[in-house]
């Protein structure tokens, strides 16, 4: 038998060697980093303050995402409507909220009392607590991004689907809810998952208005115990856990939607 030898690939080997060498250097550096107190870090990781911050981060992200999705659907439908004013209004919203930094938006919402002393009959400072301001800022910003994702998803659904729905006597709202959106979901779930991961990390920005999230907690404790780098790492690790869980969820949702052509059961 003649042996078949595959092509040698020296660059592949060299590249791999470089990656391994870098990993070793990094591990050594971390190990030698004498300023990091291992035991104290572990204690902080599951300390009550951090867990409280974790809880607020999750609640912040989930509430903002719910606002973002609802707003995104509304803005996408406005964008695709025949009314020029609605289309322009939606476009303007997206332009404004995507075009300015989220950090700036958070600062504006957090300091709204400086702009308006009263919102209706209420005093701004009592209504706009740091937590409320955080949810509003993140939710409104998320809405702008979700609008673009939703619009792309809806546009991806074949026009004939709407024709068929209307011909059966469905109203356009029913057709959207029962026929178009479930199909758009396939094109939406992947970018929306990425967007949610971004949002999870963006919640850390609300620490600038003391929103009470993980990073706020970390910054609050550090003057007391002077372990600011450990606390930052502790927070980083929690963010990593949250984004990992989200990624896994996203993977399963994509697989479920992709099954057998289109496997979602939008049961009545």
């Amino acid at each position, binding site marked *: 038998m003649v042996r078949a030898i595959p092509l040698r690939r020296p660059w592949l080997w060299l590249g791999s060697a470089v990656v391994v060498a870098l990993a070793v250097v990094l591990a050594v550096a971390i190990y030698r980093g004498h300023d990091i107190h291992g035991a104290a870090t572990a204690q902080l990781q599951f300390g009550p303050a951090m867990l409280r911050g974790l809880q607020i981060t999750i609640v912040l992200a989930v509430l903002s995402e719910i606002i973002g999705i609802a707003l995104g659907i509304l803005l996408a439908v406005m964008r695709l409507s025949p009314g020029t004013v609605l289309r322009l209004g939606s476009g303007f919203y997206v332009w404004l909220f995507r075009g300015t930094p989220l950090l700036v938006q958070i600062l504006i919402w957090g300091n709204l009392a400086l702009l308006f002393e009263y919102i209706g009959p209420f005093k701004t400072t009592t209504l706009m607590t740091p937590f409320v301001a955080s949810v509003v800022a993140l939710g409104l910003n998320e809405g702008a991004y979700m609008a673009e994702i939703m619009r792309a998803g809806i546009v991806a659904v074949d026009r004939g689907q709407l*024709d*068929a729905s209307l011909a059966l006597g469905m109203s356009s709202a029913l057709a959207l809810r029962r026929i178009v959106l479930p199909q758009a979901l396939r094109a939406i779930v992947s970018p929306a998952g990425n967007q949610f991961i971004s949002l999870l990390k963006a919640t850390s920005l609300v620490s600038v208005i003391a929103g009470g999230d993980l990073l706020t907690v970390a910054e609050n404790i550090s003057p007391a115990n002077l372990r600011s780098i450990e606390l930052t790492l502790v927070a980083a690790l929690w963010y990593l856990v949250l984004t990992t869980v989200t990624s896994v969820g996203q993977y399963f949702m994509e697989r479920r939607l992709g099954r057998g052509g289109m496997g979602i059961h939008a049961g009545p």
Partner: protein
Amino acid sequence: MAAAAWGFMPVRNVARLFVPAMPMVRAEDVHKRYGRLEVLKGLHLEVAAGEVLCIIGTCGSGKSTLLRCINHLERIDGGRLYVDGELMGYREGGDCIYEIRQRDLCRQRAGVGMVFERSNLFPHLTVLENVIEAPVHVKHEPKAAAIEHARALLKRVGLLDRLDAYPGRLSGGQQQRVAIARALAMRPKLMLFDEPTSALDPEVAGEVLSVMRGLAHEGMTMIVATHEMAFVRDVGDEVVFMDGGVIVESGNPRDVLLHPQHERTKAFLQVGASLADGSRSGPC
């Protein structure tokens, strides 16, 4: 003497004597334009209840547009379009007609079934779910009754064994038969077919055409835009030839297909005859 005769006459016939039969579809001077392109240029049409009207004509002659106007998927720009005596999508206003609210429009559309060139089945629902979707969510029929009706319809189109399949798993012909069942599930009084076999292979087209043939024999009022000349000849009660947004010629299918009077009809049928055996010309 005369009075005695009246006494024995069935009531149904009396009604027929005095009330002129109302056509199922009536188009009066219907105009439709897309931007500057006028697609329907003052079209007149009448389809009696129980009649099968076939529309033939080249691509771009306005066949599809006419069908889409009949169930108001497209707005008309002028004229009047009646379905079963009701102005479709509009209400009478003397000099003008005014478009009606969506809720009323949906009620009107629910009585008119439509089958498209591509099946447009809902890919995220199974065959059975496709068929019961509108009865359950538009007509609010009880689900059990809707399922029972759907099974009967799917049996009729020969797909009872594919109830739980997703449309993506069906052949083109099977998809079109499900689309017919889905439209029939709303118990329409009128069925519109927009080139239902043009996207299918000739072998597969036959199974769809035979379902349509059965429907015609049961007395369904049908308007069929098609290139299937054999179907027009055998099933059509009347045929109209459309060209440039108007009806050029109409009449009994055998007369029109064999002895066309108009030059444009002759030219169209000759081109058709040179393609594939005279029975079938290509899709648009």
